[in-house]
């Protein structure tokens, strides 16, 4: 699934770049993709005894969790508890920080993401990320933003195939009707909520299997927030979704499973305290710390 590692990987931060030929379904006339890349449908993410470090600082301790396919899993907890750090380990972005490293195992449908022969760029294409502040590429049009991941492939796509992928992705992000007549306009000309949906379209254009979202709505107004949540509810039928959120009501509304991270004291590593069906976490959590947090009784 992940293919062999390339030699020039290290400094590349990417949401979708992948110089090696992908198995992009829209490129019908392309040569068949190598066997290692056609295995699709990998959607379960599992962490086993994962510890995360920034140099000497032990940020997250002993996390084991199985993230179910085609579900939305919300990671909640107070600031500094390690939920974003953990999220970024799920697509090998944690290691991009100098000195940062991972102990333990993280697998995608059973395959180790951190295997010695695994190309992290491939991981990041299969496990896409949407960030807190919408970040459309500023010099590109709406069309070019969505197609950015496709354009960075070395294999050329026919224009009509690329058009089809762009439309499908914008439709998938519930943005097509609003932008179809101005695809050549700058991506930055859209409202906050539209920009975030554009970023989602860009991420799903390369057909990932998992979507990671780091507080995707915290920069958006309530109406745009609910629009993105409705979108997430639909996207989970195609992807596995993990969302970090500070907004407990959002976790309650939008997720199927909730995982609560916590710190004992400032300076301690964050731990996974409790994970369960969202309805249970918000009606009868098992741990007192969870109950205190979700009812806002946290000091």
């Amino acid at each position: 699934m992940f293919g062999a590692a390339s030699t020039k990987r290290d400094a590349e931060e990417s949401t979708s770049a992948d110089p090696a030929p992908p198995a992009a379904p829209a490129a019908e006339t392309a040569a068949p993709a190598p066997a290692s890349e056609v295995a699709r449908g990998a959607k379960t993410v599992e962490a086993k005894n994962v510890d995360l470090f920034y140099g000497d600082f032990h940020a997250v301790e002993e996390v084991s969790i199985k993230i179910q396919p085609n579900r939305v899993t919300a990671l909640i907890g107070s600031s500094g508890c390690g939920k974003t750090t953990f999220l970024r380990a799920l697509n090998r972005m944690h290691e991009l920080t100098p000195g940062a490293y991972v102990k333990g195992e993280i697998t995608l449908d059973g395959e180790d993401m951190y295997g010695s022969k695994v190309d992290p760029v491939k991981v990041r294409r299969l496990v896409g990320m949407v960030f807190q502040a919408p970040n459309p590429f500023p010099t590109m049009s709406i069309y070019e933003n969505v197609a950015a991941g496709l354009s960075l492939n070395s294999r050329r796509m026919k224009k009509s195939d690329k058009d089809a992928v762009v439309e499908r992705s914008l439709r998938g992000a519930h943005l097509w009707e609003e932008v179809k007549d101005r695809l050549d306009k700058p991506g930055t000309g859209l409202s906050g909520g539209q920009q975030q949906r554009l970023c989602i379209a860009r991420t799903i254009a390369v057909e990932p299997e998992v979507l990671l979202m780091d507080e995707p709505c915290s920069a958006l107004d309530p109406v745009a927030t609910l629009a993105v949540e409705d979108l997430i509810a639909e996207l989970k039928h195609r992807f596995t979704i993990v969302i970090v959120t500070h907004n407990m009501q959002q976790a309650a509304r939008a997720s199927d499973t909730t995982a609560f991270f916590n710190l004992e004291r400032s300076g301690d590593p964050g731990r996974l305290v409790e994970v369960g069906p969202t309805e249970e976490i918000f009606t009868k959590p098992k741990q007192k710390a969870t109950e205190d947090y979700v009812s806002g009784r946290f000091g």
Partner: protein
Amino acid sequence: MAGVRIEYQEELETLEASTLGGLDLASAALARTMEAVEHQDVELAEMVVADDDRIDGRYLEVHQSLIALLATQSPVATDLRLISALLHILKNIERMGDQCVNICKVIPMSGHEPPADPEMLKLILAMGGQTRTLIAQAKRSFEDRNVEMARDLVRQDDVVDNLNRECFQLALEIGDDADRREWAMTMLLAGRAIERIGDNAVDIGEQVAFIVTGLFREFEDASRPS
């Protein structure tokens, strides 16, 4: 912004429908209870008692779903009042079911003899019929969010109360025969239970007014007779 939070809206509509469906179950239970009373049908009475599990089951299931909805969707305004009203109404429905059970449990007590007093029986059956009308009106007023129709439940319930008073008078004059007296006593218990069902229907009407107006008021206060 069309179509936002559709799943939540649909869930709320489903739970409202399930709750009102519970009213249908209660009304059906009352109909069969009256039939059991009329024909001294012990077997039918036993079936009503057994079937009350369905009403209880509906109560528990919908109650749990409403609590989950409160926890996960943070409802406010009308949605919040609706959920609060549905929680109340579920309890009203459960009580209606229990009152039918109470009536059915006293039927075997009066034995398999034909009823002692046809006039009193007629009053009881009339109470049952009028209370079923009350239940239907309560349901309709809820579906339509019709406060006037809900308020009218008080007048309809007064009919039931008056019939109950007439029943009581007849019981006082029933005579010395022990079997007749026993039968009359059980009919008074049945009348009391039907009257309580009617009161529960009026409570549902008060919930309709709460949803629409936001004000939680009794239509009339029983402790202050008019």
